[in-house]
């Protein structure tokens, strides 16, 4: 671990790219947080008479089928997408890391059982299991979070099991045990904190993936629901308008692209700095 942490980041453009990603993320987060103040129109205000206006001074990104301002919705959509990403990652990291660290530290049959269970969940591609679950749970933002988290935690379990297993063999863990520190405390004090670095990198990489998956689910109609503003949903609603009213689809699509890109670039930069070999999902 120390070796990973102290590894020098690759110099030059690489870091700059990751920095650009970080800057973009700050921008997107700010835009989402400040949406109620910076959005030019009230959220969800319909105006059927002014439906499908092309981009103009009054509506920078145009309006949609019921006359809502697309810019406003893109800004509010960021709140949804980012909250989904945060919620999914928090839930799956919490569950996955807990199970993974326990598996890695305990070893033996405990590890076997936990790892086989994660194998089963991993056999379902995130989107597919989320699709199926979304049917079971009824589409909504909460469903998206639950469904994606269900498919995402095994990655953290696997990752932290591997690191925890190697940490558990470190002399400092043995030393702590020899000092008589009780096992749960050993895990919490020594194993867990030292297993977190790769998880943090993975979190950053995954944020983009979660946003894309959530968008795909909404796009299929199994995620966020009207009148919630969500980027995937907006693309889906405007999909049939691509040739006639391009702006309805293009701006939310770009928003997804930019946000996922920013997270991916940052995560990749971090990983390049810390561990270039971890498998991307």
């Amino acid at each position, binding site marked *: 671990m120390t070796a990973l942490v102290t590894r020098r980041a*690759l*110099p*030059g*453009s*690489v870091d700059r*790219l990751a920095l650009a990603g970080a800057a973009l993320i700050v921008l997107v987060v700010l835009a989402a947080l400040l949406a109620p103040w910076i959005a030019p129109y009230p959220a969800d205000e319909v105006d059927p008479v002014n439906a499908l206006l092309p981009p103009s001074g009054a509506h920078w990104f145009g309006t949609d089928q019921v006359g809502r301002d697309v810019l406003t919705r893109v800004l509010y959509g960021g709140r949804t997408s980012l909250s989904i990403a945060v919620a999914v990652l928090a839930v799956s990291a919490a569950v996955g890391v807990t199970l993974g660290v326990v598996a890695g530290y305990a070893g033996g049959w405990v590890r076997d059982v936990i790892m*086989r*269970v994660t*194998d*089963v*969940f*991993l*056999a*379902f*591609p*995130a*989107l*597919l*299991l989320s*699709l*199926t*679950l979304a*049917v*079971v749970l*009824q589409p909504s933002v909460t469903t998206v979070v639950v469904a994606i988290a269900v498919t995402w935690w095994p990655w953290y379990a696997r990752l932290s099991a591997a690191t925890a297993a190697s940490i558990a063999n470190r002399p400092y863990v043995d030393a702590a045990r020899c000092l008589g520190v009780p096992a749960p405390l050993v895990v919490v004090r020594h194993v867990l904190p030292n297993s977190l670095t790769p998880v943090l990198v993975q979190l950053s990489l995954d944020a*983009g993936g979660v946003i*894309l998956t959530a*968008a*795909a689910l909404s*796009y*299929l*109609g*199994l995620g966020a629901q009207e009148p919630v503003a969500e980027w*995937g949903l907006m*693309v*889906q609603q405007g*999909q049939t308008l*691509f*040739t006639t009213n391009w702006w309805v*689809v293009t701006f939310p*699509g770009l928003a*997804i*692209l930019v946000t*996922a*890109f920013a997270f*991916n*670039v940052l995560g*990749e930069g971090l*990983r*390049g700095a810390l561990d*270039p*070999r971890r*498998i*991307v*999902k």
Partner: protein
Amino acid sequence: MARYLIRRLGQALLVVAGVIVLTFVIMRLVPGDPAVAYAGPKATPEQLAQARERFGLDEPVWVQLGAYVRDLVTGDWGTSLRTRQPVLDDLALAFPASLELVGAALLLAIAVGVPVGVLAARYKTKFPDLGVRVTSMLAVSVPVFWLALALQTVFASNLGWFPVAGEYDDSLNTTSPLTLWTNITIVDALITGNWPIFTSTLRHLVLPALVVAAYPAGVIAQMVRATLIEEASQDHARLERALGFRETSILTRFALRPALNPVLSLIALVFAYAIVNGFLVEAVFNWPGLGRYAVDSIFSGDTPAIAGVTLLVALVYVLANLVVDLLQGVVDPRARAR
């Protein structure tokens, strides 16, 4: 090696068993009455009762699980509520086209991703590297459904370079009918020497395969780049340099093979992912694959069909991983020692 193989197979079987149980559990949770879905919206109570009996919906859950596993093993994956065909038959019809698309996309992704990754590693931190990194990141971050719409509009509809949709020009079936062997059109066309259909399929494949390939190509390029850079900073690369090898031949002749191992794992992973990603693309390009079947099944609450698709993709994933594990032994002699 033999012991490893047996252990690996055992693990795979265990996972398959888990997948079956999990699928079953999820399917039990689906709201709505499959009998209603089967008998149709205006069915009479008698018709509903008939349907219920037909699906064994009145038995206790564990009996149903037992029956489910037995049926699966004997090749009875249930009957689709929507198409009223055996699910396995439906899948057999839809899956080859998906395989064709995803296979083509993966080949494309490898053909593009690997050289591009090598290029980036060769000129790391220089301009080509930056270019590759940004492009591959974009490819990974773009929502496929959006990319599909955009490419279709530009290259098929506006420029007319490629067909808008479909698998091949169906009218060719009258002039040079296709004989089916594998059900994978392009393969069948190739082995029966049916050039008109072969070229037509190829032309139709370009755009959807490009869209599906975007994500895998991006991750493969990144992975190749990262592992090559890592590999090229290993001690052995220093020895090779000291022996007088050129940088490029160090990357391609010495570093690439050990670096391929994580790339192979990645491909197994991306394979199943691409099938599902394909679902989003197939609709746009009218590709007659699993995607439409899956989405239609989901919307109509067609439980057996959803379970079938889920199981199939999970099985493909397990199989792909197994194959990759064995391949890794070929690529990297160290893996054989496990």
